[in-house]
């Protein structure tokens, strides 16, 4: 509305790239639902201390393995029931969101930043540097991701920081390859050459001129990588190599609840469900981002 009233003529002010992107993005209903769910989870994670009904570590010894509130024998005090040592599952899930999202964010940021730098250097300078970096990436890619992560954690010792580091390293080659490929397509375009003629140095060319034009696939990969990171972190947690008890992490919650699969379904189901939903939300949003950012898919 403000746009048209400003110009008041028949000429419409062209959309900014972000407005254009947004109009494509909201056409994709799945992506929008994914985004809403992610915003919801982020809200829970940020305000976990106020939202969660109990402290995640607090053990209610009188209420061990209480079923969810609506089930038979449920207690209104514990909506999603309690686990084997009497901790409120809902509170642990909410606090776990904090940990899981933080881990996802850190892993993705570390591998994204490192991957962009390495990929830019490889694509920009070429030659020996390129070969060295890309062969290193190939070596990392040639090993199964989780196996490599387990090996690294086994060397560094099981902790949440070490498993984060390991996963960052595992995801690194994807970003390196993606960045390098984009750089190679951009570097010979005329606008890069004209910046060169204007006297731009290597750093300026890499980060200010070329990088913004390579970002679209990286954003998509990072979003999808987020869900992978959460999933693999949960797997490491499940194997006892990630978050150590009593930290409320979704993967390790699943792992400790293994023994109750037959007797108390809610202890396993809810952490599993929330992992599923979060990963699904990120994947939906990633797909939507890809569609909105890829000019070839636009009409």
């Amino acid at each position: 509305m403000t746009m048209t009233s400003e110009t008041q003529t028949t000429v419409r002010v062209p959309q900014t790239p972000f407005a254009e992107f947004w109009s494509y993005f909201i056409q994709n209903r799945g992506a929008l639902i994914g985004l809403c769910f992610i915003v919801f989870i982020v809200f829970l994670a940020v305000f976990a201390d106020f939202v969660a009904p109990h402290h995640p570590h607090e053990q209610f010894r009188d209420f061990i393995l209480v079923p969810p509130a609506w089930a038979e024998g449920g207690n209104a005090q514990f909506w999603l029931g309690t686990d084997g040592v009497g901790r409120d599952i809902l509170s642990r899930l909410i606090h776990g969101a904090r940990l899981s999202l933080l881990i996802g964010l850190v892993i993705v940021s570390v591998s994204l930043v490192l991957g962009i730098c390495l990929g830019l250097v490889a694509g920009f300078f070429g030659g020996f540097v390129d070969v060295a970096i890309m062969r290193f990436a190939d070596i990392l890619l040639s090993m199964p991701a989780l196996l490599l992560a387990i090996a690294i954690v086994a060397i560094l010792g099981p902790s949440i920081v070490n498993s984060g580091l390991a996963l960052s390293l595992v995801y690194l080659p994807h970003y390196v390859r993606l960045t390098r490929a984009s750089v190679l397509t951009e570097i010979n375009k005329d606008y890069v050459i004209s910046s060169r003629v204007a006297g731009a140095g290597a750093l300026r060319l890499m980060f200010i001129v070329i990088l913004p034009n390579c970002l679209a696939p990286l954003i998509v990969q990072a979003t999808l990588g987020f869900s992978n990171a959460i999933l693999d972190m949960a797997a490491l947690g499940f194997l006892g190599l990630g978050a150590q008890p009593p930290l409320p992490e979704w993967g390790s919650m699943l792992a400790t609840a293994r023994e109750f699969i037959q007797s108390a379904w809610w202890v396993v189901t809810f952490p599993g469900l929330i992992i599923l939903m979060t990963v699904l939300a990120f994947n939906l949003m990633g797909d939507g981002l890809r569609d909105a950012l890829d000019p070839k898919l636009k009409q």
Partner: protein
Amino acid sequence: MSEQPMTQQSSETTAAKPPIMSGVGLKQHYPVKQGFMKPPGLVKALDGVNFTVEAGKTLAVVGESGCGKSTLARLLTMIELPTDGELNFEGKNLLTLDRETRKELRQRIQIIFQNPYGSLNPRKKVGSILEEPLVINGKLTKAERKERALNLLQKVGLKPEHYDRYPHMFSGGQRQRIAIARGLMMNPKVVVADEPVSALDVSVQAQVLNLMMDLQQELDLAYVFISHDLSVVEHIADKVMVMYLGKVVEYGATEDIFTHPQHPYTRALLSSTPRIDPEHRIDKIRLTGELPSPLNPPSGCAFHGRCEFANERCKVETPVLKDQSGESSVACFGIDENRLPYINR
């Protein structure tokens, strides 16, 4: 070192206007791998090109695809450095200067690219595209930079409100205007235009050409205008240089070249342009064959395989560019031996 050329220059100004930019024996050879166990080949994209550009004048470089026009443009703007030769700008050889001076002088030579859709960074606003050269080189404040950018936008016929828009919001002609404005931001003396209008509509071509000519007069710019469109060249150029397979075959004033082409190749090239005036029309000359591969150029005159006047000498010896009458020169044995039927002297 720095004083000598200056005095030389000033003594020359009294006689004739010195060229602002010149090249002597410019060569650009690219080694090409031809496969395992084979010796690498050498592509002679440019093979000994001499040229001069006078301040405020336009030198057009014409020739068919693959003759080295664009390589020449890349050398002039120092996107690539030549294998051999001299590149003089305001009396100094750019190739032997130290880095600082070279960087300083390089700002005075700018380039306009063929495709305005690829030459503007799609993620930057017009304002920051225009100001980029100033940010890199200049010591101007933000406000001064913006003032200059707005000033040039107006000069190339765009409006101040275009300052905050992205390149994809403009048409091809407008984009080329932006590219021209960017080229002018550093107050260049020489602008290398690599087929600046061939990607545009014919109606827009004229606008952009007229803009370039207006700017030339106003700012005393020298253009090196690379094109394969001869009607455009005739319109804008003062001097024309015809290239064939990395060599200059004919050089002269635009009028001479267009009314009395001497080299058989120039004639063939001109005959391919439609002309309204029947007096200057040349019967269509059909060249047989393709431009030979620069990887394996023919012996002697590179054109002999496609030239109807070629004789045995042309196949063996290589003609050099010879001064004919004052300003124009041509590299052809046929003219030396006076055996070309269309030249009546």
